[in-house]
């Protein structure tokens, strides 16, 4: 049996070699499908690596409290993407922050409230800018370097703001002389005390593009916008060993504070990245589906060429059957051919996909993400494609009547 399989493999190799151009084009169909799937999976992997990397940068002592969604994730994400005011749905309030501060073994608690406002300087007026309300602990948890000036202090926190790098450029057309100037938000004037250094990481666990955001005191933000809900509370634990216990304590404290209302979630470690990752999972899942369609098209190409091959080799099938090939032998011969075609395509696609991913990494921050799971899944998929689209032509070949086939002399 093993011997026969090797023979089938050899036959398939010869047949593919003999029709080089045809085989190459067929492989290309599979390769393009595989390459696009590889590209998407690689992108997705590198994005989730970026997010994870950020968590480890911040430290293993981070605990995050978020309002729990009542809706499922997809609806939530779609709404987040479409509506500017979607941030205004939280049920976390400033009192909750106070309650968390009471919990043991915590070194810093920073609420993050986000609203979208119009900001104007003496030069420009910008709409829909993310205004981030937080407290002084923020900088203890996220150690953003400042390009100029300083972060908010106890003395100036009520009438001062810190600008993101890009926002500073947009408002004042400069970054080095921004400190000391004033911006107007909802008719109130604030002084710029600091400008963040360029962060260049639009993906982070806060879901905020800090380069384009304005940071101010949360109480002030609450005052000028009327009602502000907190999107997220970042907590820095005093020690990293007992994150689980601390997060339990926080959960209990919050449940007490909110009189039994449990519509919030406390997460730490890898769980923090989950909401951000899930967006990419869904988006890349959709993209992968589209790519899978192209893989199916490639599979149809394999089937097409195999049908041609079966028709062309009708006489050969007749001869083989006459000299003792069983239908199963013929079936295997052609199935092997389609399998090797699609596997070759899969290999091409793998290489092509990673070349594309590498080229993409030159212009984007997403490094190619190579894992044996991706490679295995891809090769298995092409194997399955080879079988699914090869079985019909192979069956057709196997079911040929040798007497009729022998009459088809080329």
């Amino acid at each position, binding site marked *: 049996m093993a011997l026969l399989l090797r023979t089938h493999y*050899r036959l398939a190799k010869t047949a593919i070699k003999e029709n080089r151009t045809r085989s190459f084009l067929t492989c290309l169909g599979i390769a393009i499908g595989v390459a696009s799937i590889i590209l998407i999976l690689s992108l997705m992997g590198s994005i989730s690596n970026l997010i994870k990397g950020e968590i480890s940068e911040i430290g293993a002592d981070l605990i995050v409290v978020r309002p729990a969604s009542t809706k499922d994730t997809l609806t939530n994400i779609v709404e987040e993407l479409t509506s500017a005011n979607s941030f205004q749905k939280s049920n976390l309030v400033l009192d909750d922050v106070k309650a968390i501060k009471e919990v043991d073994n915590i070194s810093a608690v920073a609420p993050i409230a986000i609203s979208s406002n119009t900001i104007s300087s003496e030069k420009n007026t910008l709409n829909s800018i993310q205004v981030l309300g937080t407290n002084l602990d923020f900088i203890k948890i996220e150690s953003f370097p400042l390009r100029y000036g300083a972060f908010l202090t106890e003395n100036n926190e009520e009438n001062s703001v810190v600008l993101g790098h890009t926002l500073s450029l947009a408002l004042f057309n400069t970054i080095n002389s921004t400190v000391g100037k004033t911006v107007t938000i909802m008719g109130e004037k604030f002084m710029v005390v600091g400008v963040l250094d360029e962060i260049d990481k639009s993906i982070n666990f806060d879901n905020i593009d800090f380069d384009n955001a304005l940071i101010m005191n949360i109480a002030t933000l609450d005052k000028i916008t009327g009602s502000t809900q907190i999107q997220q509370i970042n907590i820095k634990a005093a020690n990293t060993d007992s994150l689980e216990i601390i997060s339990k304590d926080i959960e209990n404290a919050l449940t007490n504070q909110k009189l039994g209302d449990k519509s919030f979630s406390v997460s730490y470690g890898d769980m923090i990245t989950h909401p951000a990752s899930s967006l990419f999972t869904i988006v890349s899942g959709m993209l992968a589906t589209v790519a899978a369609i192209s893989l199916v098209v490639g599979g149809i190409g394999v089937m097409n060429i195999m049908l041609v091959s079966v028709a062309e080799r009708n*006489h050969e099938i007749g001869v*083989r*059957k*006459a000299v*003792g*090939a069983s239908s199963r032998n013929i079936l295997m011969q052609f199935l092997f051919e389609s399998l090797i075609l699609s596997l070759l395509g899969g290999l091409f696609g793998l290489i092509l996909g990673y070349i594309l991913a590498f080229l993409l990494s030159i212009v984007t921050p997403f490094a190619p993400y190579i894992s044996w799971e991706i490679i295995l899944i891809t090769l298995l998929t092409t194997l399955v494609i080879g079988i699914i689209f090869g079985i019909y032509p192979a069956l057709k070949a196997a079911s040929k009547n*040798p*007497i009729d086939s022998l009459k088809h002399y080329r």
Partner: protein
Amino acid sequence: MDLGLFILSFLPRVRGKMSENILIELKGLTKRYGYGDTESFALKDFDLTIKRGEFIMIMGPSGCGKTTLLNIIGLLDRASRGEYILNGENVASISARRQAKLRAKKIGFVFQNFNLIEDLPIIENVALPLVYTGYTKTARLKNASSALKRFHLEEREYYLPYQLSGGQQQRVAIARAIVGDPEIILADEPTGNLDSRASHSVMEELKAIHEEGNTIIMVTHNPALTVYATRVINMLDGQIDTDIKTVADANLPQPISVKIKKRKKKGDLESLITTDAKKSRKRKKSRRKR
């Protein structure tokens, strides 16, 4: 029909005749094409008994069922009705897979139009039957090479079929037919496409093969070739017209050892009956599907 009885009825008789060196037994073989108005018979209640070592020439006008007969004997085709007992085994009870195995091991085909695979060098064409009988590649090529040597084609092993003359191609085809050391050679007008010189050399090869104890059944249109045969059968309208033996049964060349072994021993007759019955039922079902 009562299958058990049917099988029982022929089993003891088959055993009895084994000793008489019967290779092929056809009983009431009928092959029908078409139905109703278009119905026609290639073979009609055809009876024939072939012994080991016979060299049979079948002659007759076109359309009298010669090729159909050869295809049925060669397990490429099935009769519509009647029995075909090959080496004591009813072919109807042999699975398609084992029939293919038998074709590879016990039967060699030689065709009028050679039927070589155009894309394969002749050595691989000759080795083809061995692919399906479990030889390694080296063993296959070795056997094929020695078979080609026998036909003086050793210098053309890696030629492609179209690079050879008709006579050479037919010799390649005969080499392919004998490479697996089969017992039966079926030749369908092997000299039909050849000139008289090439025909002669091909016939000499067949004669040599026959003298080694192989059974040859050959269809031909050329009466001059009947000198090679031990038995000449004239067919007409799917039936035997005349049947002349030129060599007495006792003088037929015999193989040194009987190559085809009986699959089942007498002892497990019961199990044979049940499995045979099962198999024929299965086969009937599959035929109905077709």
